């Protein structure tokens, strides 16, 4: 048996909670404090906790570095795609400016376009922030020291 059984059990309980809290912060961001940046860090923390308890190799199996790299680019692309979509979708018969969310949905009385716009943009931010946090963590944690620890 591993000596860290309590840590393992507690962190297994905590990790799903952290992720759910992360999504809570994410979706709260449309109307109040919160949003993709904070939520991204919180969700990345769940993976980092997993890596701390179960080891970096296990974490890399769960979230491969390649996925992290693609994710950091994909989030930016999603954000920019929303902006480009607003350019090609005319609103009330007229072309609108970059990132003018009103174009995304015709229901102007409830500002539905604004809702969709911010939701998608925040999702892009979330994906990029999770990925970048993990990329930084992997880069530091995966680094082999120039001088082995025993030789100090």
């Amino acid at each position, binding site marked *: 048996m591993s000596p860290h059984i309590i840590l393992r059990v507690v962190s297994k309980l905590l990790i799903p909670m952290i992720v759910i809290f992360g999504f809570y912060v994410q979706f709260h961001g449309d109307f109040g404090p919160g949003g993709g940046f904070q939520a991204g860090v919180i969700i990345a923390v769940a993976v980092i906790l997993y890596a701390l308890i179960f080891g970096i190799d296990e974490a890399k199996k769960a979230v491969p570095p390649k996925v992290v790299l693609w994710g950091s680019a994909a989030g930016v692309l999603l954000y*920019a795609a929303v902006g480009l979509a607003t350019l090609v979708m005319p609103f009330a018969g007229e072309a609108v400016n*970059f*990132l*003018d969310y009103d174009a995304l949905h015709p229901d102007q009385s409830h500002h539905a376009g604004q809702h969709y716009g911010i939701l998608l943009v925040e999702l892009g931010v979330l994906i990029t922030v999770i990925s970048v946090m993990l990329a930084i963590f992997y880069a530091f944690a995966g680094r082999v020291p120039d001088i082995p620890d025993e030789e100090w």
Partner: protein
Amino acid sequence: MEFLANLLPAGLMAHAPALVVVVPLVAAAIAAFMPNGKAGWAVAMVTATIVAVFSLALLGAVAGEGVISYAMGGWAPPAGIEYRIDALNIAVLLLVGILGFLCVIYALPSVADEIAEDKQGLFYSAFLVCFAGLLGVTITGDAFNVFVFLEISSLSAYTIIAMGAGKDRRALTAAYNYLILGTIGATFFVIGVGFLYMATGSLNMADIARILAENGHDRVTQAAFAFIIVGLGLKAAMFPLHMWLPNAYAFAPNFVTAFLASTATKVAFYALVRFLFSVFNPEVNFVDLSLTWVFAVAGVIAMFMASAQAIFQTDARRLLAYSSVAQVGYMMLGLGMGTVLGLQAGMLHLINHALMKGALFMALGAFALKFGVREIKDLAGLGRTMPISASAFTIAGLSLVGVPLTIGFDSKWYLIIAALDRGWWWAVAALILSSLLALIYIGRLLMVVWTETAPSHQGQQVKRTHAPIMMLIPMAVLAFANLYFFLDASFLVNLTEAAANAVMGD
């Protein structure tokens, strides 16, 4: 200019101010997916072409309409972020667009040689982020947005400078040094913008200028002014805040040095001009005093100190880096005169210097690719072994000194006219004396290139060779520009005259 305005269809033209920044940002994300350097380069090349076309089209539009304003997300300024292009920033936008385009052509062989194959896609990604950041600083009309883009360009610049570690590990410390100083600069700048926001309640630069003109200045706005000048001065490598620059230029990959030397400090300098002349009013007492006693004086000291330091360098790229600091001194002197003529001369030198330094660093990159040359003594005999690159190097070098028949002469001519107009005889003397210093350090390089014999390898003379055609073309274009704009300076002179009048004219 008429045909430039009609370069793009009207639908695309309406969104050109946003797209010129968005396209490189999107391309950066796409380049990160690219499996190898060639594919990454192709993305960068397409992007740089689009940006160059957009900036030409915007030049035509600004010539026709005057000021172009674009409200991001449909939020009207001053509350929303405004992209605002007038005669001043179109000159810089065009410079960044065209030089970015030329540098990317140059990049393929140079990057393939210097950066590890599996890192090249990400390298181009970081480069495109930097490119987007520089374009963003140039085009935006929002003071906080300037900070954001300044950081976007700087953070990615640290990364691409550090990529020089493949050839020389000192690139890591150079990039780290730049990171620390660049971050201090950014912090000072954002503190200054914060003070301005506190005093005026606005972040839109045109709006801040209007409110400052109405309410007048107090301690808060004066503090804001000081913080902004120091912050942007650090980014622009303004003497004595230039300490990060020589090492960063000397150890970065050659392509990065050519790109940053001809665009990054220029853009920071543009931001400085924007704040000095457009947001703050040069007729206000404390602004006028700092122009004379900070900019002109520090500029003249830079012209001598940095030139003298350049003379004693042994590394070719470090020599040119110190020379860059000295050239920023010329631009500072131009601004410091606080007149339309002085500003025009400063802006003209800004553009001309980008053309010269671009060609010089490109030629050094070509020498490094073929023979691994870094030290000045290793340049021996390159006039015979690599004649085309060495010729481009010579033309740009003479231009840097200010020899007639090159645009360097134009810059100095306009600076001297402006100094005489202001009655600053000492500035004329300083300009001529520091040109002599430039003659010494450029002369040192050219003597080694042309008069010394090429080294022999195993008893045989090194054979004549040429840089790859992809490197020769942009280098030759820049060298040709150095000659052409002397014969027909009207394009650059009109561009900078309009730029100076846009912020200082009546």
